[in-house]
C-alpha cells in the first residue's frame, strides 16, 4: 500500500526537477543572449563612426584634432581587453563623439546636410540601443538570479552548478546616464 505512494512522490519529484532544470537553463540562455546583444550594439556604433567622420571632414576638415580623437577612441574601444578597459574606452568614445556633435553647431552647412542628420539619428539610436541592451541584460540577470536563489530551485542550482550572473554596473555616474549629445 505504501509503495505506490512512495513511487508517486518520487515520479513527481523527478518531473519537478526536470521542469526546474529546464527553466533555469532557459533563463541562463536568455542572460547570455542579452549579453551578446550589447556587443552587437557596440559594434553597430563602431561601424557608424568612420562614415560620420568622413561626412564631417567634408565640411570641417581643419577640426582635425577632434576627428582624430574620435577615430582613436573608436580603435581603442575595439581593441580593448577586459571589462574595465572596455568601459573606459567606451566612455572616451562617448566623450569624443559629444565634442564632435558640439562642434557641428558652428557649421550650419554641416547641420543642414541630410547625410549628417541621418547619421545623427542613427547614432542617437545606437546610444539608446546600447543603454537598452544593458537594461535588458540586467533584467534577464535579475530574473535568472532570483530563480537560482528561490526554494526549491536553489537546491538544484547548487547541484548542477548554476552560478549567479553579474549585473552590468557602471561606476562613473556620467556613464550611467545615457550620453547626452546636444545638437
Amino acid at each position, binding site marked *: 500500500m505504501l509503495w505506490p505512494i512512495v513511487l508517486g512522490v518520487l515520479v513527481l519529484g523527478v518531473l519537478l526537477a526536470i521542469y526546474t532544470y529546464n527553466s533555469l537553463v532557459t533563463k541562463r540562455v*536568455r542572460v547570455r543572449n542579452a549579453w551578446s*546583444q550589447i556587443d552587437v550594439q557596440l559594434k553597430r556604433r563602431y561601424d557608424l563612426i568612420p562614415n560620420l567622420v568622413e561626412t564631417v571632414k567634408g565640411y570641417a576638415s581643419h577640426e582635425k584634432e577632434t576627428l582624430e580623437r574620435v577615430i582613436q577612441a573608436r580603435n581603442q574601444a575595439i581593441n580593448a581587453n577586459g571589462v574595465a578597459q572596455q568601459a573606459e574606452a567606451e566612455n572616451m568614445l562617448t566623450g569624443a563623439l559629444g565634442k564632435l556633435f558640439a562642434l557641428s553647431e558652428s557649421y550650419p552647412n554641416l547641420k543642414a546636410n541630410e547625410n549628417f542628420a541621418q547619421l545623427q539619428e*542613427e547614432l542617437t*539610436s545606437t546610444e539608446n*540601443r546600447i543603454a*537598452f*541592451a544593458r*537594461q*535588458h541584460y540586467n533584467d534577464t540577470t535579475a530574473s535568472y538570479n532570483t530563480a537560482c536563489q528561490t526554494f526549491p530551485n536553489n537546491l538544484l542550482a547548487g547541484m548542477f552548478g548554476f552560478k549567479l550572473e553579474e549585473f552590468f554596473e557602471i561606476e562613473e555616474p556620467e556613464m550611467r546616464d545615457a550620453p547626452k549629445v546636444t545638437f
Partner: protein
Amino acid sequence: MAVETFHDQIAHNKRNSFLLIGVFMLLFIGIGMLIGMVWGGGDMTFGIIVAVIAGIIAFALTLFSFYGGSGALLALSRAREITHKDDPQLFNVIEEMTIAGGLPMPRIFVIDDTAMNAFATGRDPAHAAVAITKGLRAKLNRDELQGVMAHELSHVRHYDIRYAMLMAVMVGVLVILCDVFLRSMWFGGGRRSNRDREKGGGGAQLILLIVALVLAIIAPILARIIQMSLSRQREYLADAGAVELTRNPRGLASALAKLSGDNEVLEVANRATAPLYIVHPIKKFEARAKGMFSTHPPIKDRIERLMALGN
C-alpha cells in the same frame, strides 16, 4: 480577478483566447441550427445538417481569425506597410524598444489619417504588427514616440494582441452574418409564408419573426461584449509595461496629453476594431477625458498613474 504580473497576464490572455474560440464555435453552431430549423420549417434533421455545416464553417473561420486576423484588421484600417527607408526614426525607436524587451521586430504600418492614434495586432510576438496614424507620427517628438511604441509593444508582449484580434475578427464576422441572415429573411419570407398558408399553419412564421428579433438584438449586444471584455486593466498594464521598457514615464505621459487634446474621429475605425487602439478612436475627446467608455480608461487617470511611477 486581479492580474498581478505580466506572466499572469500572458497566461490570462492565452486562456481567454482559447475560451473565446470555444464560445465562438458554439454560438456559430447554435445559430446555424436555429437557422436550419427555421428554414426547414421546424425539421430537426435539417437543423442538425445546417449545424454541422456551420461547425465546419466556424472551424475555418477560427483558422482564418488566428492566422489571417491581423492582416484583415490592418487591411480594414487601410494600413500601409513601410520599410526602414520610409521612416528611419520610427524604425529606430521601435527597434530600441524590442531590444529593451527582448522581443522580435514587428512589422510596421502607417495609416494615412490626420487623427492621432496607434494600435498593435498579431497572434504572438513573432507575428506582430504595429500601426500608427500619420497625424500621431507627425505630432510626437522622439521621447513621446518611444513611449507610445513601448505601450504598443507591451500589448504585444502581454499577448493582449491575440485576444483583441480574435475578438475583433470573430465578433465582426458574427455581426455580419446576423445581418446577412436578417436580410435573407425579408426576401425568403414571402415565399415561405405562401406555402405556410397552404398548409394552414402560421407557427413557422411566428418562429421566423422571433428569430429575426433575437438576431436583431444579438448583433449590438455582441459589439457591447467586446467593449466589456477588453478591460481597462489592460491599458493600465500596457502603460506600466511601457515604463518598464523605457524607464521614462514622462515620454508616454506627454504623448497621452497630446492624444487627449485630439478630437478628430478616425474614419477607418469601427466598433469592432475600436478596442485595439491606444485611445478610443471614435468617441469625442470630452468623453475620452471623462472615461465613460469601458474599453479605455480616462486619459487623465492614465497620466496620473504614469507620473506616480516616476517618483
